[in-house]
């Protein structure tokens, strides 16, 4: 006897026949459940959106007027024959793992997640299930993150040394999530913190939701660059080295990303520094998260899927690779998404 699995992997994305909804679909659908607001998860064009109340404001900002219903972490909704709830994924503020239950069978689509409490996102909570869909962006044993406090000390020391040399410290980070996390790690005593418009827009939204972030100054055309020698400027990576950035004069640039773990990438990005920090789980984080679900069936997406799935099978789990729309191995697409 065969029956359709609770969640299926279709060309549109992850689909639940019992509830007739998709999770993070790639193409326009009628009903989309969204794990978080990053561009590769929350796409435009769906008829109805469902996400956490914390994720909605950013999604509205990014996607414009959308029909979005929100739900609190842990609140159970019934959609068709399925019971659906959202649980903290710890990836960025408002990010969720989506739990789907029909009868006694439980699936969890975890979206993107990290284990460490970053102080801004609701911390990751393991959710028991039978079937677990996991990302594997950093699913290789050379990825090990150090505690956030250690990286914070490195970044602040670098900033302080730039300031001492009258250089502006440019720190490249994705506008949603990573930028605010870095912001919360900075020591405002070192100097003023400036932000690029793309980042400041997200700051405004998060502050509006009650998140406490250090004070920032919008680095638009009106500021006097000379006043801000020794400042730290948070900017999307694409803005580093641009005409806008060059106006600040003497400067150093740094990138903050999990990929900075690899020397080849550090050197290729050609910044002055690379800080190893990610909003995705590292190798041990992925393995412990998977173990904590108690799931026997693991579906691997995003990243080093083949290798990671093979390893999961080696350690006695029933793992398979499921398609991602983008080929996951690329280091050039932003890891933060």
């Amino acid at each position, binding site marked *: 006897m065969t029956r359709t699995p609770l969640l299926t992997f279709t060309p549109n994305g992850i689909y639940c026949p019992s509830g007739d909804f998709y999770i993070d679909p790639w193409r326009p659908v009628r009903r989309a459940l969204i794990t978080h607001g990053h561009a590769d998860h929350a796409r435009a064009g769906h008829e109805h959106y469902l996400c956490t109340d914390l994720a909605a404001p950013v999604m509205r900002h990014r996607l414009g007027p959308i029909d979005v219903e929100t739900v609190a972490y842990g609140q159970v909704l019934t959609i068709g024959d399925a019971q659906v709830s959202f649980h903290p994924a710890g990836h960025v503020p408002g990010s969720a793992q989506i739990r789907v239950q029909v009868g006694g069978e439980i699936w969890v689509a975890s979206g993107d997640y990290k284990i460490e409490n970053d102080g801004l996102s609701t911390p990751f909570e393991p959710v028991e299930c039978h079937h677990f869909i996991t990302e594997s962006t950093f699913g*290789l*044993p*050379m*990825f*090990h993150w150090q505690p956030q406090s250690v990286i914070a000390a490195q970044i602040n020391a670098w900033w302080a040394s730039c300031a001492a040399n009258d250089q502006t410290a440019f720190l490249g980070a994705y506008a949603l999530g990573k930028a605010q996390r870095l912001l919360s790690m900075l020591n405002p005593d070192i100097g003023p913190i400036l932000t690029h418009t793309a980042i400041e827009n997200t700051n405004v939204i998060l502050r509006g939701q009650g998140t406490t972030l250090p004070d920032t100054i919008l680095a638009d055309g009106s500021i006097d660059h000379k006043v801000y020698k020794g400042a730290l400027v948070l900017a999307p990576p694409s803005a580093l080295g641009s005409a806008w950035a060059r106006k600040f004069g003497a400067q150093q640039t740094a990138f903050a990303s999990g990929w900075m*773990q*690899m*020397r*080849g*990438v*550090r*050197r*290729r990005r*050609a910044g*002055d*520094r*690379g800080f190893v920090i990610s909003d995705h789980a590292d190798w041990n984080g992925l393995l412990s998260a998977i173990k904590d679900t108690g799931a026997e069936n693991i579906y691997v997406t995003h990243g*080093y899927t083949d*290798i990671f799935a*093979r*390893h999961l099978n*080696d350690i006695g789990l029933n793992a398979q690779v499921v398609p991602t729309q983008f*080929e996951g*191995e*690329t*280091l*050039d697409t932003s890891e933060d998404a």
Partner: protein
Amino acid sequence: MKQFATLFAQLDQSTKTNTKVAALADYFSTAAQEDRLWTVALFSGRRPKRSITTTKLSKWAAELAEIPDWLFDECYPIVGDLAETISLILPPPRRLSDHSLSFWIKYLKSLADVEETDCKTAILNAWGQLDTAQRFLFNKLITGGFRVGISQKLITRALAKSTGQSEAELAHRLMGKWDPTTTTWHDLIEAEDASADASRPYPFCLAHGLDGDAADLGPPADWQAEWKWDGIRGQLILRDGQYFVWSRGEELMTDRFPELSRAIDYLPSGTVLDGELLVWRDGHPQSFNALQKRVGRKTVPKKLLNDAPVILYAYDLLEWGGVDLRAHPLQYRRALLERACADLSDDAPVRLSPIIPFKSWKDLAEIRSDARNHQAEGLMLKRGDSPYRVGRKKGDWWKWKLDPLSIDAVMIYAQSGHGRRANLFTDYTFAVWNGNDLVPFTKAYSGLSDEEFRKITAWVKKNTQQRFGPVRQVTPHHVFEIAFEGIQASSRHKSGVALRFPRMARWRQDKSVQDANTLDDLNEMLAIYG
């Protein structure tokens, strides 16, 4: 090791030469002498003798990290460096120590004759007290290859800054056969008599490629023109009744060219010549293809010595009667060189590379176009009143090469690069048409910008037809202009030809696969230039 790791991070992270020089100079002023000596040694390609195989090292690391060997093998190509892969997968250190760089070098040396189990214990013990950055360097001490973009020139600049000695003097001191296990910082850098070692070569004077108009160089009378030979640049040293041959890459090649030993019979001790090592037959220099057989041969069988006899085609005289002539103008050195070579018999393994007389730049351009018929790659232009400089200084020496040969080819396989480009597909295999088939004929991995490599990488990922380990077969679609310096017949290649210095001259996005060249075109080039 912490101090060395800090230095390494500074060098590795900076793209600015001044920052690198400052970091090195600071290190040379503050680090222990033994560590300085080793740092110079490591950055100039000298490394401790390998006491442990990389296979064992990988195995122990995987064991300690509790990952299976296959998983380690998957990680290695992604990281692109074995020492780094190991440093990243190991569990965090138990306790940190701070022993010096030389301590760890001696530590490794002491493992040379130790039982495998003890050796393993010692390595695990070391890993257990080093952080990731230090472990990487520790592993590099074993595997070799400190590639941080630190040129010899940068080292000498930093040393000059730190010691107050001149760069030229320091460059000379760093040349030659010195060994960090037998010399000291004082003997190498500070001692009065730095030329005690008879084999010590002079740093080579290098030329820049001429991209502008030769006429901009000024009056032709100020310049000396020579053929740019297609051989191996070499320095022949005759001192104390011995001979030494150095390559431009600072490799001692004496044993590879035993025929040059007879130079001792023709020229006096205290002579140092700069020239081109070439195969000489029937009164003419032969193409690089003839020399190819001798390259990479550590010992030379008699037959090969007869078939491909090598001479030094001399074009500069750096030392005469034991006196360093480098500060004298080229005309002076040339006059002495011509006198020294005047009476050489035809058996001598040294010959005088001729000067090409010319009246105008236009004449010279015409002469240059005939270079391939002289087995030359083009011309060398040297300012008559110039001293023999250290390294590549702009202005006095120019190479005016012929345009390279080129062919349009189709990319059919792609493979990721190493190090800085480990995450890009940069190594491609190219094919030309043979009827309706595409026949692979060369690989190339340089010549494109990072931006272009990124574009092609994205394309390769979407257009992979098949994978063979790290190699991807891609849809034949993109055409590249492959430039190269020479072509020869090769039975090892399916196409029957092998190219010299192939690289991608241009990505021909304007051309379709059908526009690529054919095997017949290659064979025609082989007939003309092979």
